[in-house]
């Protein structure tokens, strides 16, 4: 299998600020690869470099077999880009937009027209195709934007935070569209701040922080890195939370790995044996007279993986230690 995206040691500096600090990334053709990271991690810079909108200071970028620097034109024939802000002409209708982009991809006039109609139908915009885009809802705009990225069925599609700013319904619409694309052999690279999104869509995930990849793998790989299952206890009385947290290490974890979330009245710790831990925690809580609202054993979320790998659990851990 060929790699549709190869990024090696890419650096990009804006003055003193290092936006990308040796980014490496490989995505096999026909897969969905998520680049996950907080605001300012360098996700957008990375996409803009891969999509030939920016030039890297250093490093190699190869998209669909073409060098992004030396063969930018060739790369542009092979990619679609969905930026953070809808990259469509608001004054024109949806159909006019798609037709224009089709012409700019050098489809003939008639072909551009039929392609526009096909895409409008496929993205459920056929009824509103003649309305000005500025009258569209956020979700519709995003779908049109996505349609515009797919005029020539790109081999690599970049989606930069495709669902940021959308309501849950709009988000679900976009997810569905992305899933339907993957079947067609397109390689999708998406950036997101939402772990759930990566979990839902991606075959592989690159966790990015401060301009470099700090972990890479399937979502299951990454979750496994946190050491398996966790037990969550939600207490009824917030005042008992710290005491509850102190009971958890006895369930098989160590004091270090207990996290507490005061807002959700939630204490959480890794466990070795699911059933044994559950019984022991239930009993311990009863003996201490702590009333639990909910107890659950589960796989760790990507959130936890991320916080752990970026070393941003310090605050949480300190809170537990002080409490204990």
């Amino acid at each position, binding site marked *: 299998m*060929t790699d*549709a995206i190869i990024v090696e040691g890419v650096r990009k500096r804006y003055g003193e600020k290092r936006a990308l600090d040796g980014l490496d990334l490989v995505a096999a*053709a*026909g897969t969905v690869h998520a680049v996950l990271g907080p605001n300012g991690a360098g996700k957008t810079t990375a996409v803009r470099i891969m*999509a*030939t*909108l*920016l*030039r890297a200071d250093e490093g190699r970028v*190869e998209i*669909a*077999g*073409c060098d992004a620097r030396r063969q930018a*034109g*060739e790369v*542009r*024939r*092979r*990619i679609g*880009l969905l*930026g*953070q*802000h*809808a*990259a*469509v*002409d*608001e*004054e*024109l*209708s949806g159909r*006019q937009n798609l037709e*224009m*982009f089709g*012409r*700019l*991809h*050098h*489809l*003939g006039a008639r*072909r551009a027209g039929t*392609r526009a109609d*096909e*895409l409008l139908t*496929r993205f459920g915009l056929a009824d509103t195709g003649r309305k*000005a885009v500025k009258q569209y809802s956020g979700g519709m705009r995003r779908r049109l934007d996505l349609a*515009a990225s797919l005029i*020539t*069925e790109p*081999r690599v599609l970049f989606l930069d935070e495709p669902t940021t700013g959308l309501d849950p319904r709009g988000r679900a619409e976009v997810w569905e569209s992305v899933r339907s694309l993957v*079947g*067609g*052999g*397109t390689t999708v690279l998406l950036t997101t701040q939402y772990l759930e999104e990566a979990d839902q869509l991606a075959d592989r995930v690159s966790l990015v922080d401060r301009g470099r990849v700090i972990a890479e793998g399937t979502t299951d790989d990454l979750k496994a890195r946190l050491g398996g299952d966790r037990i969550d206890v939600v207490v009824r009385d917030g005042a008992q939370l710290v005491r509850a947290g102190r009971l958890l290490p006895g369930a098989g974890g160590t004091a270090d790995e207990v996290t507490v979330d005061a807002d959700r009245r939630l204490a959480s710790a890794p466990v070795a044996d699911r059933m044994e831990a559950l019984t022991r925690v239930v009993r311990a809580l009863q003996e201490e007279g702590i009333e639990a609202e909910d107890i659950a054993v589960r796989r760790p979320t990507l959130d936890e993986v991320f916080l752990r790998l970026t070393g941003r659990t310090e605050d949480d851990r300190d809170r537990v230690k002080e409490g204990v």
Partner: protein
Amino acid sequence: MVSPTSPTSPTSPASTASTASTASTASTASTVSTATGGTPVGPGQGRSRTALALTDCWTMTRRELAHWARQPVQVLVGLAFPVMLMLMFNYLIGGGKGITGDYAEFLVPGMFALTMVFGLDATMVAVTTDLNKGVVDRFRSMPMANGAVLVGRSAADMLQSFVSLIVMMGVGLAIGWRWHGSLAEVAGAVGLLMLLRFAMLWLGIHLAMIAGKPELVTAVQILVWPVGFLSNAFTVPENMPGWLGAAVEWNPMSAAATAVRELFGNDPGVVGTSWAAEHAALLAVLWPVVLVGVFLPLAVRRFGGLSR
């Protein structure tokens, strides 16, 4: 990354587009065949670069024209605004002191020049809006000719200003302005005005890219007024304090107004004796040429430089 052999590669460029959504099997096949790189894919192959670039420019021009069709009111307001200014100055404000004969004969050509300078504002707004909407990012990520976006803008703005000029000439005739020169001279006057507009166009594109944000455009929109009024469009420099009059004579807009008045055979009013006033025709050509010479390359470079 050169593919050894790919079964469908001879047909893949066209099929990528044509089979794209008709059958999933077909689109998969074309995707696989091209996934290894090598030959360029995509439609439009076999046509020369120049032909494709011209197509792109035409597509971008049509985009601007489609904007007009969608916003007829805005287009009408854009055409009515300079007409309104002209009527206001002719009937309400009147700076006819020092001008022999009919004030309209003096004012109307000045208003033509002013209209061209005010076009700066329209260009800037359009360019800034585009840059902030992300549309330009899409254009730049497509296999289109680099300059087509700017050419489209330029063609549309020039056309708008030409139409505006024709309307102004019509209204001018209605309020008593006449041309007395030959048809060639009239064409020369129109040419000079369009040249001034062309200079404002590239200045506008460049400034818009520097300013970046629509808020900063407002500042330029305001500054256009004093520049427009520090000219001989409404009154002769003799009516102003000496130093101001001298500045006014060097204003590119004044040079254009004076040159155009001469070409139309209108009374240029009291022409000063400074070098600038005596060589208005030369300056009317030289100013725009210099402005274009400076700002066209700067604007194009800046547009290309978005990738740095």
